[in-house]
């Protein structure tokens, strides 16, 4: 009877040990995910897919931040609204006058700002990638170019303009290393550009025109007391947002 009890106790201990080992493995996988995945299957991982998993989260955060701040990472002239610094893209400090364009090439500017926002993380990812290849016994040669963000319909591409050559016996050369995320910023920036055209010419814009034409678009216009306007463009499906401020054809209070 006692022997059976001992055996049972021994089994329980074994189960506990196994459970601990499994948990430790799970933690390691979670912590070193890209590196472990890197060597799975004995095949060298394509750098684009490694970089995609490495940078995707930061890229999405950078896109969101820039989009909520009128296309700028650190706006110089902005309006503080619900704790967001919203850049003025068209502005006049006077009454009765239409605004002076402050950010004409909005798409290009937004792309540059997103590039800036993720440049540090991109460097880190390349460094991690290099180390991961080296750990797997590869000789690595990375030639870095200037990363380039491109807003495209329904997606944003990050082109690293880099070349990676790895060698372990055979040599493999990777060019055209890109990361892509699903996002509607291209569409939202195009609409913002159109609204800015109305603001410079007429001092205001009609929000319903855009919502009539684009089924999934929500356009909000919020007027502030000193004559500024905040535009919030939202894709109803993806919830992607782009917001910016203008001050055009403002009317003074009282006489």
């Amino acid at each position, binding site marked *: 009877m006692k022997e059976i009890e001992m055996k049972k106790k021994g089994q329980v201990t074994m189960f506990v040990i196994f459970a601990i080992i499994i948990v430790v493995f799970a933690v390691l996988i979670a912590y070193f995910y890209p590196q472990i995945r890197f060597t799975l299957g004995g095949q060298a991982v394509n750098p684009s897919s490694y970089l995609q998993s490495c940078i995707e989260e930061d890229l999405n955060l950078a896109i969101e931040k820039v989009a909520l701040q009128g296309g700028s990472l650190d706006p110089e002239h902005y309006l503080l609204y619900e704790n967001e610094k919203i850049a003025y893209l068209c502005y006049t400090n006077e009454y009765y006058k239409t605004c002076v364009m402050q950010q004409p090439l909005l798409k290009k500017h937004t792309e540059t700002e997103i590039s800036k926002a993720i440049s540090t993380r991109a460097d880190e990812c390349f460094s991690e990638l290099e180390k991961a290849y080296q750990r797997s016994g590869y000789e690595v040669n990375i030639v870095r170019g200037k990363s380039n963000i491109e807003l495209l319909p329904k997606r944003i591409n990050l082109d690293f303009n880099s070349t990676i050559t790895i060698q372990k016996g055979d040599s493999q050369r990777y060019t055209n290393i890109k990361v892509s995320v699903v996002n509607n910023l291209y569409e939202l920036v195009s609409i913002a550009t159109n609204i800015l055209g109305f603001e410079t010419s007429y001092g205001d814009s009609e929000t*319903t025109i855009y*919502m009539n034409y684009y089924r999934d678009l929500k356009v909000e216009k919020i007027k502030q007391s000193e004559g500024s306007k905040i535009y919030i463009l939202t894709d109803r499906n993806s919830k992607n947002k782009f917001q910016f401020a203008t001050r055009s054809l403002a009317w003074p209070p*009282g006489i």
Partner: protein
Amino acid sequence: MGIIYFFMGFVSAVETSYCCEKTTDGTWCQNAPEAQCADTPFRKSPTSCESIAYCKLGCCYDSQEGTCYENTPERVCGEDGGIWEGNAECDIPACTLGCCLMGDQASFVTQTRCKKLASVYGLEINFRTDIGDEFTCIASATSDVKGACVFEKEYSTTCLFTTKKECATMAGNSSAEFHEGYLCSAEELGTVCGPTEKTTCVEGSDEVFFMDSCGNIANIYDSSKIIDEDKNYWTKIYGKAESCSYGNSNANSESCGNCDYYLGSICKSANVSQRPVYGNNICADLRCSFEGKTYQHGETWCANSKGIAQNLPGSKSFRMVCYNGEVSVEPCAEYRQERCIQSEVNNFKSAACRVNKWQDCAAQTEKEDCENGDKRDCNWLANTPTSGSDVCVPLYAPGFDLGTNSSESNSICTLATTTCTITWEKDIAGSKKRVGDFNCGTLAWNNSMKTMCNSLGDCGVKTNYLGVKGFNDWMVNYQENPKIEE
């Protein structure tokens, strides 16, 4: 006349001493006091920006995207690599618009933009300079002919519902045969694709569509046309106008998927409470509910804060907007500088924030001019106690920014300040008799003064829009029969 000049003086009160190429807060080309101009390398001049070369507004052209930006200073344009031309309205050859036809889409853009769109969307373009307006351009977009593209795949005859052009270019299918106007489920085509009870939403279309067993879209969902009920409906393409309940929104209809965004419905996944007879998609109702009322999709209407009718301090107009089942609020300008106006045609409301045109009221000397609603929002006050003559005052009294412009607002309100003298005469018998201006100090006189005072702006005795009383009380110091001092 004094009043007129006083009013006009305030209208143009803007301090514009220097033209700053850039201000200290980072804005380009603003008229501002010298202290607000950024230091070198940015320029500044004691003149208006309209008359200085470095802040001349022009057209900024993006040669990569093919877009043009009006009212842009040269340096701002150059910062991001734009090409600047000294024509603020962008009336230059590079910015000439034409009709860009791409597939079944059309866009009224520049030629460079048209090429850019073609490369971005991977479409062939036809840029037409003979179409000179956006409406004609969009109307001239034609969809490619669609039909069943039948081909052999893995020893069976299958089908793809597509355009004639795409069918012709299908890789590796030299045997692909295009049947214009046919659905893949047509029995006579002899394909493996057949009718199903499944439905789907298609991007860019409002309607709910049937799907065939190969995953192709078929005609608009109509529960009475299911599978064998109507073979023709599964053979040939039926247009929107030939489909069920055309001209209605069909919102939440269990049987018909002929949704129409402009009539207030669009294809969406059905929820638990609203289920179609077949499939999982329904014409979702895009109407809005707000404060117990239902509004049509696309309707806009006015909502005012308390006290707007009395022009109380802080009161304000709002435009409410119903789209996609959601109500959003667009405030009109503060200080009652805009008022919301609303019209209704066939029970469909449309509203807009319109500028309160009070600015030149004081300059009007004729009643007819004063009350000309097309030109201004003014009210004619006859025989006012202050001047003894008629005065034109704002119909909707503008509000004051009491926090920053209190001295200005005091000056304006003082316009309605007046003094009149009541004279009493004592006769030989010692009894007193009022003589001279009998109107002075009467209740009618007092009310007339109150109207005049309140019309100028946030003047006189008022509660604010929340009902909080101001520091004056009109009636406290008023006495119908004032005590006479000997």
